[in-house]
């Protein structure tokens, strides 16, 4: 029996430990439907609690997005719980129902599985918790269940990349490194191909899957170099992919003959541009996505109408403006 006692003591000690560590949050989350009646400037009723669920937080993009959300909400005196679904759609579903049952005022979701969110959306609807989708879309049939989607203008990002490439090499023979399970990447490639039609002399030799990672792109690119001796340009769907391409070309001593364009605008990508290894990256602005999503949520709670599909700007980064973007963050 005294062993059981020991178990009790140690487990309770362990748990008492946690609040000390986190040092947070005794906000008793006042009711959700706080009335939009007071329209005194931008000081909405303070102290509300919001939730966010991301497919992963093992990626600087989502950490930045979360920071953007948090900053904007904090400016209004509100708080935010951020949860990491670890690419696990069941965990995301459970996380969302935890937030919904905690009566948060609103939830931001970056879906793991864009087909699989309906159950959670219905649950939120029953409890009148508004949901905003960030960075990636949901199924069209689910759109009526959400306030809006806030994401980068990925089609535009692809178009910018194509324009940038056309400027330096209007007769490029190029390959595309794709991540075709991801809707954002599908849009990027669609925008890229659309712009390419204006330049009939450019030719896509091949489209290959490269997992959206540096490790994934390297071997794929090495094969492509061998197969297409006249290849002189690459469109990679994100910065990690482009870094893998650079590594493969570098070891084959072909980096100077090939122009690489990509989408992302990460610090690593910008540094590669400054080093002259990458031509351009169409930058996304995750913090801005977060800020705008938070603004839309607050507007919705104030009873203002919100457009369904909010596109956040993208901007081309080349050697000319790389410096300022490096400092910006």
């Amino acid at each position, binding site marked *: 029996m005294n062993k059981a006692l020991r*178990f*009790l003591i140690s487990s*309770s000690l362990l748990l008492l430990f*946690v609040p000390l560590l*986190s040092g947070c949050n005794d906000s008793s989350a006042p009711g959700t439907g706080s009335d939009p009646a007071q329209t005194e400037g931008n000081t909405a009723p303070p102290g509300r609690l919001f939730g966010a669920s991301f497919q992963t937080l093992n990626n600087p993009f989502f950490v930045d997005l979360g920071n953007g959300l948090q900053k904007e909400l904090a400016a209004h005196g509100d708080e935010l719980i951020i949860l990491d679904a670890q690419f696990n*759609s069941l965990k995301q579903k459970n996380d969302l129902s935890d937030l919904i049952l905690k009566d948060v005022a609103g939830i931001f979701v970056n879906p793991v*599985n864009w*087909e699989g969110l309906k159950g959670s959306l219905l649950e939120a609807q029953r409890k009148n918790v508004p949901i905003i989708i960030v960075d990636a879309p949901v199924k069209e049939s689910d759109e009526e269940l959400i306030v809006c989607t806030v994401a980068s203008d990925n089609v535009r990002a692809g178009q910018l990349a194509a324009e940038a490439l056309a400027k330096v090499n209007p007769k490029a023979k190029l390959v595309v490194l794709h991540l075709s399970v991801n809707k954002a990447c599908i849009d990027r490639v669609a925008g890229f191909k659309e712009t390419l039609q204006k330049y009939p002399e450019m030719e896509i030799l091949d489209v290959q899957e490269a997992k959206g990672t540096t490790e994934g792109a390297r071997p794929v690119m090495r094969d492509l170099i061998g197969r297409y001796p006249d290849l002189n340009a690459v469109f990679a769907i994100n910065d990690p992919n482009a870094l893998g391409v650079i590594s493969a070309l570098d070891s084959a001593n072909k980096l100077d003959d090939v122009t690489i364009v990509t989408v992302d605008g990460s610090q690593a990508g910008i540094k590669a541009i400054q080093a002259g290894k990458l031509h351009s990256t169409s930058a996304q602005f995750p913090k801005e996505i977060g800020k705008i999503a938070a603004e839309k949520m607050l507007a919705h709670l104030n009873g203002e109408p919100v457009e369904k599909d909010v596109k956040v700007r993208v901007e081309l980064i080349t050697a000319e403006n790389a410096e300022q973007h490096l400092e910006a963050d």
Partner: protein
Amino acid sequence: MKVVKQMVPLLAAIIILLLLFRIWVPSFLTPENMLNLTQQISVNTILALGMTLVILVGGIDLSVGAMVALVGTTTVYCLTALSGDTQDPFMLLTAIFAGLGVASLFGIFHGIAAAKTAMPPFIITLASMLIARGCALRFNSGLPMPIKDEQTWFLAIGNGRLFDVVPYPVVIMLSLFLLMALLLHRTRFGQHVYALGGNREAALYTGIPTVRVEITVYLLCSLMAGVAGMIHTSQLYSAEPGSGEMFELTAIAAVVVGGTSFTGGRGTMFGTILGAVIIGILDKGLNQAGVHYSLQYIVKGAVILVAVYLDVRRNR
């Protein structure tokens, strides 16, 4: 009585956790939140019930997560191919049996390979984890496969409620728990499982049909993964070829927190369900208390360590 006494620390831990989180999150103990907890743990508990049997005979099954995905994709593929836009109970049953059939094939293979060869179960099921994952990804080029809205019966498995109160996943989980507890603690098969896990050679010499027992154990584990896969798929309104990653580890965590010895021969189904409840309370409580996600990992890791350490000490 002995079993009850063994459960005291686990029950005490559950009560303490509930009270702690009640202080922290005022709405924690509401019936709705608790009912939601039981729903959230259902998939993991069902996986853990099967895993308990396998660990009791001194084995391990790393393939259950991939099996969740494969059973889901197989079932949804058959359901869509067979019934299209209409609902037909016969077609639904056929699709479900196709899914469970695939799981059975894997389970029987695991059992035979573990019993008849010298290959360690860790490696056997590691290999079939990769094979099952690969098979799941063959469907729909690895993209999620939506379930048509017309398939209300299949969607009810994960989303419906009995008498509009108890979610079906909870009903299924409790029925399977009763079934497995009876099987393990009230039948000769159950005694054979303990004997096999306690001392394999001795079990063989006493005339226990070790091969048959081992095949049954792995088969049951894969079937449990199959049922969990159905619930998971239904809850997500789609079969996801990439889903279920790491589910095997959460299931193993529930089993060992529940006091089952990793070397086999000792453990109970009741312990496992309590282990799953503890992990479920931690997940929900830390989420609702707004604990930063980085700390959640640390706390969960620490709790598993403490629970298993105390259990090991207690039984030394």
